[in-house]
């Protein structure tokens, strides 16, 4: 243990982003750690306010109500996340597609926004990112940033902790997490029973992990659908499979779990280009990994 570490890490948790977010700091004295953690939670809360599908004043809600009629200006962080989302859509030929909000609403996973039903032909290609952070939808559509906003919030929180002088920390937003610092930490992948009474563990240093999907019989918490939709087929994917993606940025890891869940090894080249590694567990309980060398 480095000598700069104090005897006990400081950890706090709050409900945010629809899940429990925990922030743990190892290398600051307690009062400084609490100040840094408070600031990190403020970053996460700001991401939540801007990008929540449920909050009526969020950028996402305003876009879903208005952007099909006229361009809507969004906050700088939402603009960054939208650009990221469009980048992932292009990189995955549309398998990652934030307009699958329509399918999620139809499946009961999200409440129906207060605007006309989406055009069934609408896709990520109908989202226009204009100058000065304006956004326009060329067709009636709904977007949901749930597939990337959690990862982005984790990245913001870690950046904030670094600004407060933290060098070893972990921010975990309901399983989408980032570990910063020289000391590796182990993460258990909660993926249901594995053959041979084994547990799948990832040992990580200075990187992020996101997980999507669930095995049969693994109950999820109240209000959670656990559904992901393939933006091309517009069908629910990954039933019984779990995808875990390791990347430097949590936003990248978060976004890539969806196409990995849907199609898996087809994305090996894209994962390598993005410096990401995927571990996919199929319904039969077998692990495969692909992408950048682990």
């Amino acid at each position: 243990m480095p000598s700069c570490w104090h005897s006990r890490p400081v950890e706090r948790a709050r409900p945010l982003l629809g899940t429990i977010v925990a922030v743990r700091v190892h290398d600051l004295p307690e009062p400084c750690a609490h100040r840094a953690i408070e600031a990190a939670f403020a970053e996460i809360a700001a991401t939540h306010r801007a990008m929540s599908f449920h909050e009526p004043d969020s950028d996402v809600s305003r876009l879903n109500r208005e952007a099909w009629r006229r361009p809507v200006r969004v906050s700088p962080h939402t603009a960054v996340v939208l650009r990221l989302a469009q980048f992932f859509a292009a990189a995955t030929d549309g398998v990652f597609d934030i307009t699958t909000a329509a399918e999620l609403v139809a499946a009961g996973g999200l409440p129906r926004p207060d605007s006309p039903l989406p055009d069934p032909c609408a896709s990520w290609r109908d989202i226009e990112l204009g100058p000065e952070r304006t956004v326009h939808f060329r067709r009636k559509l709904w977007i949901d940033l749930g597939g990337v906003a959690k990862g982005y919030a984790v990245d913001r929180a870690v950046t904030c902790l670094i600004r407060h002088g933290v060098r070893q920390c972990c921010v975990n937003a309901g399983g989408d997490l980032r570990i910063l610092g020289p000391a590796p930490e182990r993460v258990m992948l909660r993926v249901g029973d594995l053959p041979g009474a084994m547990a799948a563990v990832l040992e990580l240093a200075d990187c992020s992990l996101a997980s999507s999907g669930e095995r049969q019989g693994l109950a999820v918490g109240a209000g959670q659908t656990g559904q992901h939709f393939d933006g091309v087929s517009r069908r629910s994917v990954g039933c019984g499979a779990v995808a875990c993606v390791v990347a430097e940025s949590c936003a990248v890891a978060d976004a890539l779990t969806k196409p990995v869940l849907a199609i898996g090894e087809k994305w090996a080249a894209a994962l390598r280009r993005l410096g990401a590694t995927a571990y996919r567990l199929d319904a039969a309980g077998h692990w495969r990994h692909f992408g950048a060398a682990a």
Partner: protein
Amino acid sequence: MRSRFLLLPVTTLTINVPAHATVYLTIEQAQALTFSGASFTPDFRTLTDAQMASIEKDSGVNVRHRQVKVWRASTGGWFIADDVVGKHEYIPFALGLDQAGRVVGIEILEYRESYGHEVREPRWRAQFSGKQHGARLRLDDDIRNISGATLSCRHLTDGVKRLLATYAVVLAQPPR
């Protein structure tokens, strides 16, 4: 950036989530963090049947405890310690309200259940123990984090809704 994937026998793992302790904050620490510099005076209330019914109707959430553990902050505002039922265990949490009843802070005080609950259950682990011939737990397999099926915070947000209704029904009223 470094990562490696391991498949480890379940019985050798020490699941240590949250790290080092299952208590994040004591009530006193949460009070100090929510209302910096304030002192606190207990003002516990016991709900009448009518108040409980009113809170349940306003919030749509069941009231489990008749006693409301409230403190007044000397700088203005209220600090309430309560708990909600998670999937497996109670989750103690604290809510800070300003003088107008607006939320100024939410802190989870303890979080034992997390994701690894079933793996830490002695009965679950015992089913594998016969295969290990008394192998000892190795502390260097300390697991500090869990990823996987997401947990919803719905129970906590329902708890906050219930406490906001409690504020409106009980605390906001002028003293008789």
